[in-house]
């Protein structure tokens, strides 16, 4: 019979002991700030860089063998260039000779060459960003060759900035004067797409921003799953650490002379579980905060935030923690030091990571046979249910959710019962480790 007063005393001590450590405080409160700061800083820096690169005006060479852009009316000399950036770019490339002709489209400046030789010579001197050659059989093949300097950037934003401009220029030059102006306009922007998602209940929802929705619908489950797993393993890790420290510090016998192994195991599970839950709430708060920000950002776009998954995640954290924690405590107690105990519990941690290894399949087909199977396995249930509920909550049945909860409760009960017996034996083990059979005999699991 477990005595609540003992369990409470153990739980309170373990919670205070871990929560006062600077390493716990740092990981719990510092890590989210660090990662937010780091990822925010990195994203801002990269965004700024890409925007600057996109806005940077560069001169590109254009050799038009197909004669599509040979109309003098669309070209100008240096003096006729619009905008100070375009003029600065031409000046920087030292291309201000009177006979040189230019065309400015958005932030792109093209300069015309009769053949590749002159253009490539300037490219080699890094005075041009690239040289585009429209083939003489362009109408038949659509072939355009782009020459790039090998000293140029490996990953370039040119395909997103220069090439669409060139594409529109070629379309415009082919159609203008040959077809109606409305057709030219539509050809230049042939499709304004509106996505509408329809649910099993017959609801329709406009999803204008597919990219943002994709980020929210896959990013949040992924982040939530990773956080759940990290918090689970972190809290279980504290358990392994504390029991190994009990043995290393030689306080085990004093504890066992005052409390039953069941009480010790339960008290440690609860105390360190509370510390783990606090950690999870802080971390999950970061995800929820991110989700709220995304919702605010995308309020006009009706992006779905998986609130049901977020709401149920603490329950799955608690169940998953109790299950893994009791397994880790009993196996960790067999070690004689912190590193040895951690090695012994590595297998459980790998089983916990299983759904993360299957994340691609889960994201692609959350309610497929693998998703359904992982829902019923106690090792993978917490993460799988959260991910499935995040991606498409309507695809997971109530029976599956309650089934997973029930399976976890039963498995946890079995793990605690068996774990407490091994725990009693493991706590007193010193020196050489007994054989598996001897261990089972001492734990009275076999005769």
């Amino acid at each position, binding site marked *: *019979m477990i*005595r609540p*007063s*003992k369990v409470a*005393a*153990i739980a309170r*001590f373990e919670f*205070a*002991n871990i929560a006062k*450590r600077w390493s716990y405080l740092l990981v719990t409160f510092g890590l989210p700030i660090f990662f937010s700061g780091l990822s925010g800083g990195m994203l801002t820096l990269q965004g700024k860089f890409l925007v600057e690169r996109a806005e940077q005006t560069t001169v590109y060479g254009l050799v038009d063998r197909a004669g599509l852009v040979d109309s003098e009316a669309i070209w100008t000399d240096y003096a006729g260039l619009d905008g100070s950036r375009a003029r600065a770019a031409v000046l920087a490339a030292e291309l201000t000779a009177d006979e040189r002709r230019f065309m400015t489209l958005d932030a792109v400046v093209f300069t015309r060459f009769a053949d590749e030789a002159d253009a490539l010579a300037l490219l080699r001197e890094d005075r041009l960003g690239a040289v585009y050659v429209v083939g003489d059989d362009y109408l038949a093949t659509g072939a355009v060759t782009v020459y790039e300097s090998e000293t140029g950037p490996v990953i370039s934003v040119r395909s997103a900035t220069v090439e669409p401009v060139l594409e529109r220029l070629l379309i415009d030059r082919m159609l203008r004067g040959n077809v109606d102006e409305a057709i030219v306009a539509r050809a230049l922007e042939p499709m304004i797409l509106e996505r509408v998602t329809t649910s099993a209940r017959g609801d329709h929802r406009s999803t204008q921003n597919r990219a943002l929705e994709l980020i929210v619908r896959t990013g949040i489950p992924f982040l939530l799953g990773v956080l759940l797993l990290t918090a689970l393993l972190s809290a279980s890790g504290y358990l392994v650490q504390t029991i190994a*420290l009990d043995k*290393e*510090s*030689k*306080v085990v*016998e*004093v*504890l*066992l*002379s*005052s*409390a*039953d192994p069941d009480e010790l195991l339960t008290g440690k599970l609860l105390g360190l579980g509370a510390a783990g839950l606090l950690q999870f709430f802080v971390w999950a708060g970061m995800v929820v905060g991110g989700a709220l920000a995304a919702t605010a950002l995308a309020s006009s776009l009706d992006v779905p935030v998986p609130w049901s998954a977020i709401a149920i995640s603490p329950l799955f954290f608690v169940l998953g923690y109790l299950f893994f924690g009791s397994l880790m405590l009993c196996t960790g107690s067999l070690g004689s030091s912190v590193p040895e105990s951690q090695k012994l519990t590595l297998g459980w941690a790998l089983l916990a990571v299983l759904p993360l290894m299957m994340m691609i399949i889960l994201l692609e087909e959350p309610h497929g046979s693998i998703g359904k199977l992982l829902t019923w396995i106690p090792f993978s249930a917490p993460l799988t249910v959260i991910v499935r509920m995040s991606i498409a909550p309507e695809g997971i049945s109530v029976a599956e959710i309650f089934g997973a909860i029930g399976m976890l409760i039963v498995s946890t009960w079995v793990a605690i019962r068996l774990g407490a017996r091994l725990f009693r034996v493991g706590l*007193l083990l*010193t020196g050489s480790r*007994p054989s598996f059979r*001897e261990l089972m*005999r*001492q734990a009275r699991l076999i005769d």
Partner: protein
Amino acid sequence: MTAVLAYHGVRKSYGRTVALRDVSLEVQPGEVFGLLGPNGAGKTTLIRIGLDILRPDAGEVRLFGAPLHRDGLDRVSYLPEERGLYKKVKVLDALTYFARLKGLGRKDARRASERWLDKVGMGHVAKRNVETLSKGMSQKVQIAGALLSEPELCVLDEPFSGLDPVGVDMVKQLIRERRASGRATILSTHMMNQVEQLCDRVAVIHAGERVVYGTLREVRRSSSAPVVRVRVEGDLPELPQVARVVEEEPGNDRELPLLALHLAAGGTPAELLDALVGARARVHHFEEVLATMEEIFLRAVRGTGHEVSAPAEEAAE
């Protein structure tokens, strides 16, 4: 009187290794009970079984007159031989935790911890982390931890190790205070001089068996040769109680000769004293020669001893 702790026919094996064979003994209220034996004899297993840390394969253990139960263990404390404290925890917090585990309320636990730290002279380290303590300081803190719940039974396994003479004296005083207040103490130690000074009754365990058991006096007497040392003025009268006389020290100007009188079969020191007084001998010194606990221990462990048990009524004194 109900025994505080009683073992009846306790057996315990680890695989094929037999740790305890049908061990029976009792610890009475208010006594200091010496649990002795060489390393690996089974003492720790016996203690662990008495504290419900281990379960026996056979036999019965009764605590405070009832079958072993967890609530009864709140009235028992244990200072194991292999001991320590949480290194990263403040001394006062560690002791308060141990007191809480013994069922004390939060305030009582804290007050008792402070009082006992003062009592062992460690009040000044209450707020310090355990890892900053020296070995001797840590020992004193742990002794305070074992005694602060004022348990009716306290098991002290090698409580003197790591202590200086002042520390040893302090622990001896604490054990005597426990006896004076009617609380039982089981003392497991290899320091036989401390056993002679402190214990009321003893048991020696060897190879899992109880080989010596009884009151200290009875154990020493029954393990001793029937010899009495005397200093007598004048000639020693001829007495039928004396089989042989050996002069151990010759007499001189300051001291009478020291004679070892080997008693005749069936003779007792008391009868001899009566006979000496009856013969009007002027006895200056009369000393029953008893084996030391160290001699008894060595004989028992080397197989030359024999089971020494006090009569049942004496064991229950």
